[in-house]
């Protein structure tokens, strides 16, 4: 998680690209810019952390279509859209599609940069959660089938006594598998387990 975040900038107007790049760089941000949504997609690596800043009205693939394309491929990258006058309905669609925000051109530097920072923070948070979930998944994978069976029941709030009865084993055996499982998962409380279990189910 040491890779620096990048702002992926997509706008068909070279002057807008160049000026926004300078603005982002003045904030110390790393920028990659693209003239079209197609160009961005052909170079896009979803693994690279960062956010997308795109013009809504572009020739070729529009901002909205780019968003649909990314969502369709399961890419969660936070998106910030820039709009011109009179494209509020498109902007609303973009937000409904999960964009972090939209800004009307011309954008003020302070507002723009703070929204970009928010988008980058969202991306970092998403990646952190994803990473944690992956780790957790790996830890769950180390459980034996019996341990998994019991941990799954504990996670949804079943008491040891109930589990023992339903599985037809002694309460002591349940307790044994449960504590081994919790140790493998590096979890201490049922509350922690329940939280991770829910995250993994989504």
């Amino acid at each position, binding site marked *: 998680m040491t890779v620096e975040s990048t702002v992926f900038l997509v706008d068909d107007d070279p002057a807008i690209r*160049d*000026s*926004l790049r*300078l*603005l982002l760089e003045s*904030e110390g941000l790393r920028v990659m810019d693209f003239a079209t949504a197609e160009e961005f997609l052909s170079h896009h690596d979803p693994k690279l952390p960062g956010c997308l800043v795109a013009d809504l009205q572009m020739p070729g693939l529009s901002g909205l279509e780019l968003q649909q394309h990314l969502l369709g491929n399961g890419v969660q990258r936070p998106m910030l859209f820039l709009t011109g*006058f009179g494209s509020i309905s498109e902007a609303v669609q973009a937000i409904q599609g999960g964009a972090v925000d939209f800004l009307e051109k*011309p954008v*003020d530097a302070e507002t723009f940069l703070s929204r970009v920072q928010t988008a980058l923070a969202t991306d970092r948070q998403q990646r952190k959660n994803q990473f944690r979930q992956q780790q957790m998944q790996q830890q769950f994978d180390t459980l034996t089938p019996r341990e998994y069976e019991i941990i799954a029941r504990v996670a949804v709030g079943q008491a040891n006594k109930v589990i023992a009865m339903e599985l037809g084993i002694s309460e002591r055996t349940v307790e044994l598998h449960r504590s081994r499982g919790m140790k493998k998962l590096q979890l201490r409380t049922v509350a922690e387990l329940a939280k991770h279990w829910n995250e993994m189910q989504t």
Partner: protein
Amino acid sequence: MPDQTASYTDPLSDLQLQESEEHLRAIYNNVSEGILTVDSRCCILNCNPAIEQLFGYTGKQLRGQPVNYLIPHCKTKAVDYPAAKCQITNNYQVTNHYQDTGITSSGKSIPLEITVTPIHLQGESSLVVFVRDISRRIEAENTSRLRLQEMAHSGRLASLGEMTSSLTHELNQPLTAILSYAQACQRLLRKGKLDGQLDNALTQIIEQTRRASAVSNHLRRFIRKGDSERSAVDINHVMHDVLHLIYHELKHHHIDVELDIHKDIPMVLVDRLQIEQVVLNLLRNAVEAIAATGQKRRELNIRTFKEVNAFVQVEVEDTGGGLPAGDIFAKYYSTKSDGMGMGLPLCRKIIRAHGSDLTAKNNRIGGATFHFQLPVEPIQSQSSR
């Protein structure tokens, strides 16, 4: 010398002469056109009552006066019509037809249409000058021209209203860039990190300011309310100006424009504002027609070329859905939900006022083509420009 009498009809009898004279006198005295007889020195020999009425002088006051007394710039010099010519023109009369201005006894100017016919009187080359007051006709022409001008202006404002969003975008782009460059420089300056970037940023700010002002100039030039005046216009410039205005719409709908225009095309004598309006209407219609089809081929072809007659032909071809059923040139006919159906009727009116017609036909491979012709400016005035 050839015997000219051979071509004359038989000599008339006295009675016939008398009747003929009476007949001509009745016409001379009652015709609404003014008739002046002018001698070789350009002085008035005689005039009819219509002249007296038109200019407010009596025949007695006018006799012997130079013709320029009534028509200051009159070109009726008998010497302009060689005596030899006058002799043969007893039957084949040379006439000269033109418009001029007369001055009445009260000093009022009146527009005149003048016809000059040379005759031979008592061995001298003289002229008969027919004078027609055309003030009413000119007034009517002015009224209808003004009305057309008003309509063209409202049509122009309506088109611009529809284009607000794309024109704002065109202005907003450079403004966005300018603001971002300036704010970026300010931030870098405050952090003490501004070095190499300043020169490029300033160059870009200048460039983008020019871009914005070009957009606003195009807009201002287009929105102005000019006089209805015909002048020598390069139709290709009109095409480029209008294309600038709709640049964003073309880009937004991914339409390729192919310009097949002849560089050495002659100037046309037109009302530029009105023709711009026609071109804008046709191009925007074409854009909308193409945008409405989901087709891959999205082309707008514009052709201008010189016709064999004294006209320049303009063609606008699109790859849209073709012409709808019904008379597209009829007033209030519209296929657009927000259309008023005034665009094409107005365009046709404008083109007809320029002595041609606006027509439309479907292309064989889809889409429609609109064409019209514009009158070429006569060479003389081109060189005097």
